[in-house]
């Protein structure tokens, strides 16, 4: 490293900080009755100190001060990877499953609540993973299908008293049909246009939910959705099964755990089937896939329908869990959140998406005091991830690049 590089780095750092102050000051410091400097200066100083710390660590790293730490970390990583590779897969799955089943016994009500949320988002993330991660179709209106599922169950349960378990497949089917309706006109588009059109469709669904007063009760939403029922073993006189309502949060946890496990198995099986491979072929190079005899039209439609169906499952559970649905829960930001999980975790990778959901739902709970900054950090993380690690935390094993992006 030369002195010139060092100078260049610190000059651009200084310019960046001055630029930041220029952008920050007018927003905080201009009031109708006069100009203020103190509030913007304090905020700017905090940010500047944080940036300086990062810069110093970076500088020390450049000078090789962390070599020892790094090599220790690398050897630790190597040994963990060896251990991970040596452990048979079924053992890992059993440990994971055991922990998931024992979870309610180890934590309180609050923990169950958070776990339910995480699992809902795991289902949503895995569903979107089919569309974005496997088939490579960027969908920004995904939450609409979640809404379709939730409203289907809410309406059927309120007006016709249909049971949760019966509505689960019905909602998935209807969401899948909605997926086909939305997918059909967008099949000719790729990349950017597809993203913006799906976004438009998502907004249309939300506006319909918001304005169709007779059916959806508009912004007030639908309440008194019934809970799921289960047969529960009863030991009071001998042994019999009793039909009870799921009321406790830990019971809900088991319901969503079951749904999540089914989703994971389905997505895993799809991923390694002929269909999954065809989706990956479409993702890597659509034209080449078509030339090789892949029916891109049908498979892309299928990707939409499958993704939407899993969102429908999650939506049904959401309606049963909350006992209330309103258009507020199905905004664009939710779509962006699910997308961020898929991207953060690693597109196309099942453990990655689960990790992403855990990171984006459970971590903010740990920092409850910073609730306000949640979305800010989340937007920042999305950009930063793209800059430093575009493949995600736990990348999928099989990914390539689209041929038209190579140039």
């Amino acid at each position, binding site marked *: 490293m030369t002195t010139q590089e060092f100078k260049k780095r610190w000059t651009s750092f200084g310019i960046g900080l001055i630029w930041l102050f220029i952008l920050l000051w007018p927003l905080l410091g201009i009031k*109708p009755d006069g100009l203020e400097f103190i509030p913007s200066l304090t905020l700017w100083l905090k940010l500047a100190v944080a940036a300086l710390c990062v810069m110093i660590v970076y500088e020390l790293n450049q000078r090789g001060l962390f070599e020892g730490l790094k090599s220790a970390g690398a050897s630790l990583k190597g040994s963990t990877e060896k251990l991970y590779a040596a452990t048979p897969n079924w053992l890992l799955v059993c440990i994971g499953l055991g922990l998931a089943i024992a979870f309610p016994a180890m934590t309180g009500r609050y923990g169950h609540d958070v776990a339910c949320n995480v699992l809902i988002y795991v289902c949503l993330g895995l569903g979107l993973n089919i569309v974005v991660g496997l088939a490579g179709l960027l969908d920004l209106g995904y939450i609409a299908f979640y809404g379709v599922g939730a409203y289907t169950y809410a309406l059927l349960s309120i007006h016709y008293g249909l049971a949760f378990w019966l509505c689960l497949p019905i909602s998935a089917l209807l969401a899948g049909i909605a997926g086909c309706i939305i997918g059909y006109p967008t099949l000719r588009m790729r990349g950017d246009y597809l993203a913006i059109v799906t976004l438009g469709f998502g907004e249309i669904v939300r506006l319909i939910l*918001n304005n169709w007063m007779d059916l959806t009760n508009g912004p007030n939403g639908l309440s008194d959705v019934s809970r799921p029922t289960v047969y529960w073993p009863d030991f009071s006189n001998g042994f019999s099964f009793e039909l009870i309502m799921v009321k406790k949060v830990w019971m809900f946890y088991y319901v969503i755990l079951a749904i999540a496990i089914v989703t994971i198995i389905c997505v895993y099986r799809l991923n390694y089937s002929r269909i999954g491979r065809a989706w990956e072929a479409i993702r890597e190079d659509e034209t080449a896939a078509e030339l090789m005899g892949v029916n891109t039209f049908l498979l892309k439609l299928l990707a939409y329908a499958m993704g939407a169906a899993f969102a429908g499952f999650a939506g049904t559970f959401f309606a049963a869990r909350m006992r209330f649905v309103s258009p507020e829960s199905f905004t664009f930001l939710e779509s962006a959140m699910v997308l961020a999980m898929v991207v953060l975790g690693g597109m196309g990778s099942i453990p990655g998406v689960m990790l992403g959901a855990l990171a984006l739902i459970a971590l903010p709970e740990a920092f409850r005091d910073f609730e306000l900054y949640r979305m800010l950090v989340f*937007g920042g993380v999305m*950009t930063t991830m793209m800059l430093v690690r575009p493949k995600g935390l736990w990348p999928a094993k099989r990914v390539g690049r689209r041929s038209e992006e190579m140039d």
Partner: protein
Amino acid sequence: MEYFLQQLINGITLGGVYALIALGYTMVYGIIQLINFAHGEFFAAGGYMGVILISYLAGQGASPVLCIGLGLALTMVYCALLAMAVEKVAYKPLRTSSRLSVLLSALGMSIFLQNGLMLTQGVYDKAYPTEMTAGGFEWGNVVLSYMQIYIFLITGALLIGLNLLVFKTRIGKAMRATAQDKVMSALVGINSSKIISLTFAIGAGLAAAAGIMVGFYYGSVNYSMGFVPGIKAFAAAVLGGIGNITGAMVGGLIIGMVEIFAAGYLSSEYKDVFAFIILIAVLYFRPTGIMGENVDDTRV
């Protein structure tokens, strides 16, 4: 008939504002083929900066024309600086990576800016001093308010200015050259990195002007106001043929008219849906837009 005339005036007003936002989309897309999701946030930031500056200037006792003129100019400069910073941080390092990465980075930036605005300015609406531009001309039941005249004048001036910049100056020539072929224009000595940065700045400046005018027109601004007009303006840019400056202006006017007439004659609740339906229909039947020419089929 009077109702129709009134709707026509309102439609042109709104259409002009959409045209201003659409220009930023179309210019950025024309040069680097990126849907700049954060563009709607420049619009919202412009609205906020406008309310801050104009209420400050009014507090200092400046005349309405000075307030609006100076507020507009400073806001445009501010948003141009913001856009250059965003481009430098979130888009420039990704110039060579996949399209999906840049798109997601833009989405992240949009959420970041929107929430940054919320944290610094609060979640409640901020009101514009609309008494500054109250009143207007009346013919029977048709009203042409002073604010609408301001919007016509400012939008017209900005559109003419932009056209002169793009088609008559060296910078404009460099921009057009970069849009056609980045490598070749770099070979003849155009600093394409600077041109891209400048394009972002100009687009954001126009969006900021639109933000001020929307704020004045509706009386208040909100931190989340950038999203829906951003999408509608994108629809306008696509309708006109993305990458085409005249197309963006025409598209903006059409989308504004459609929205106002749909709200007036069909259903005001579903007025936002019409812009999306136009977007989908255009992309489905004529992906190059009304004025677009040869978009190669890998893009669509």
